[in-house]
């Protein structure tokens, strides 16, 4: 079986300040996996995710998605690749002054007729799909509200609905629950789990809490100072490994 996503020797140096954010990172992801990235703030998790769909240009290394070299793709090819790689964010990244429906529909921008999108016109089936996806994340009644009128958990669900609109093969989640309370965190994580199990979407999520990573991840990748320091099953992380990843003074906290 060919690998779904291959990352080879990925390196990112931020020129300002000459910070080495990613240091020769290599790993691969199988189709249907739920891979969780863990590590402290500033360990390079966000940079890694953004280098995969080239929201940030990597300094060196290669990313191959379904046999296509992302790092060598032209801007047209890159747009086609990005359609298949959905992303959700820590701060939700919704357009706050636009309606929930518009935010969800913007997930189709890579697919629709660009001319029609210029006048905010979306095909009928896309609008229907948006309604279905809002129902799926449990907030169909919020469709015409402005995005900033929603609570944090609801906003992240809009983010998920927007990702669903892309019919993605891979979902990247950049600390999707860090801004949410524990109960809401679990409900959001369960939507990701559902996408992973029912739609067969490969998930690559960075998480702050090890307990969440253990509960949802099928495999864990730990970053420290831009390097991979652990790769394996959730159960393999013991006390020693934990201290290696998070530092000597860290205590494990549970999110229930």
């Amino acid at each position, binding site marked *: 079986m060919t690998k779904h996503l291959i990352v080879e020797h990925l390196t990112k140096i931020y020129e300002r300040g000459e910070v080495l954010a990613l240091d020769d990172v290599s790993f691969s992801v199988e189709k249907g996996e739920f891979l969780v990235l863990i590590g402290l703030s500033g360990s390079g998790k966000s940079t890694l995710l*953004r280098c995969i*769909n080239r*929201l940030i240009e990597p300094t060196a290394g290669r990313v191959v998605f379904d046999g296509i070299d992302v790092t060598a793709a032209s801007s047209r090819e890159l*747009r*086609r*690749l*990005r*359609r298949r*790689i*959905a*992303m959700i*964010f820590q*701060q*939700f*990244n*919704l*357009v*706050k*002054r*636009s309606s929930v429906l*518009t935010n969800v529909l*913007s*997930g*189709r*921008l*890579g*697919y629709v007729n*660009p001319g029609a*999108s*210029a006048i905010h016109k979306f095909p009928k089936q896309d609008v229907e799909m948006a309604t279905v996806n809002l129902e799926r994340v449990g907030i169909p009644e919020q469709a015409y509200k402005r995005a900033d009128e929603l609570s944090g958990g609801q906003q992240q669900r809009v*983010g998920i609905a*927007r990702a669903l*609109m*892309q019919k993605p093969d891979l979902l990247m989640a950049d600390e999707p629950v860090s801004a949410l309370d524990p109960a809401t965190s679990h409900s959001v994580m369960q939507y990701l789990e559902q996408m992973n199990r029912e739609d067969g979407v490969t998930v690559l999520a960075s998480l702050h809490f090890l307990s969440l990573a253990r509960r949802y991840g099928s495999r864990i990748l730990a970053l420290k100072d831009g390097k991979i320091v652990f790769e394996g099953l959730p159960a393999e992380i013991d006390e020693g490994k934990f201290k290696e990843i998070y530092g000597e003074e860290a205590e494990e906290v549970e999110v229930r």
Partner: protein
Amino acid sequence: MAKRPRKSRSAKPDTFLQRVAALKPRLYAFLLDWGSWGYIAYCFMYLLNRYWYVRHVNFYGTLAVPAWAWPIVVVGTLELAVLSHAFGHSVGLSLFGLKLFGPDYRASSWQVRLRRYLWWHLALPLQALSLRKAHPKGLLVHDVRSESRMLVVADIQEELPVVKPRKWYLTHRGLMTVALIGLTFWLGWMTTQINLGTLFGRASKSAYLWKALVTPDFEHFVTPDPQLRDSIMGGILESIYMALLATLLGGVIAFPLSFLGARNIMGFSRAGWLVFSLTRGFFNIFRSIESILWAVVFAVWVGFGPFAGVLALTLHTIAALGKLYSEQVESIDPGPLEAIAATGARRWQVVLYGVIPQIVPSYLAFTLYRWDINVRMSTVIALVGGGGIGRILFYYKNEVGRLSNAWNQVGAVIVVIVAVVWFLDYISGRIREKIT
């Protein structure tokens, strides 16, 4: 808590250019202090001229520094700057965060300071001879010889002992600041020929004018003045429409330009940077030339009248709104742009779906605010042939000799201008409150 790692700035400078760069704050501080002593010398000359030369020597002449004395002035101010660096905490040093330290960050004795001052004179020639193999820590000759260092305080903050600061009026920089501000105000007062005696002594001369202005004559409010072939009403409407057209045209043109002038939209490639710089340059240059000056140009180009005024106002509006708009684009939340780009959208789709919804309210507010400015501007733009209510105002003002009620007519025009400007200001203020 773990100790913060030292900043990389304190790392050993190894190339020639790095060595020069490490000396940059010291150089800037020195130039600033030299400049301020030079300014004080200039002020001294100005005052000497004013209070001694013109009064007692030659009323029609100006005291000037003879050619042979210029080197003395230059060297004198230079010495003063060096002295104020060696013996005190000058304005330049405190602005660039530098401080003089002896060994172990202690304050230096006066002997050390004197040695530093004297060695300084040899520093430049010696340095020029040997800068390529200079001291490894980027020190200059007088640093080494006097065993004192000029250091950036922020770099060594943690190691400094806590010292109670001196009262500002006992410090060199405090006194220097007061002297600079005081002298500037003194010279400014005299250069602009401010004279309070005239202001109050001649107040009664303007009394008839005030009287006429508060008893406005609305004879030609709606009935056109046969000589002028226009009424006040016609004039103010012309002004309002001029402002409206200029704001609309200016806003419509500035809207697309504002994206070209936004760093976060254009900063993705070298060509983008070029467009960004050109657009910003255009905004800055055309904004700094007031619309009344543009009206002079357009009055020659298209002839006197409101059309010239509209063109002048539009040009200035494009530049001013363009700048405000693009700053607004730069201050938006980048998160949604990232999210929309990640869906595979094109660049312009990101702008359309991610940027525009975020900026619409402030764009409207800025545009309304600009309309206020344009209405006010359009009342005076007639001074250079730009049309509008100002034409009527200046007509009556110039007819003072012929018409006995000319000032009363001027009063009427002013009353109308005030009423309209106030009213539009109020309305646009209310609308701006609503949309932001």
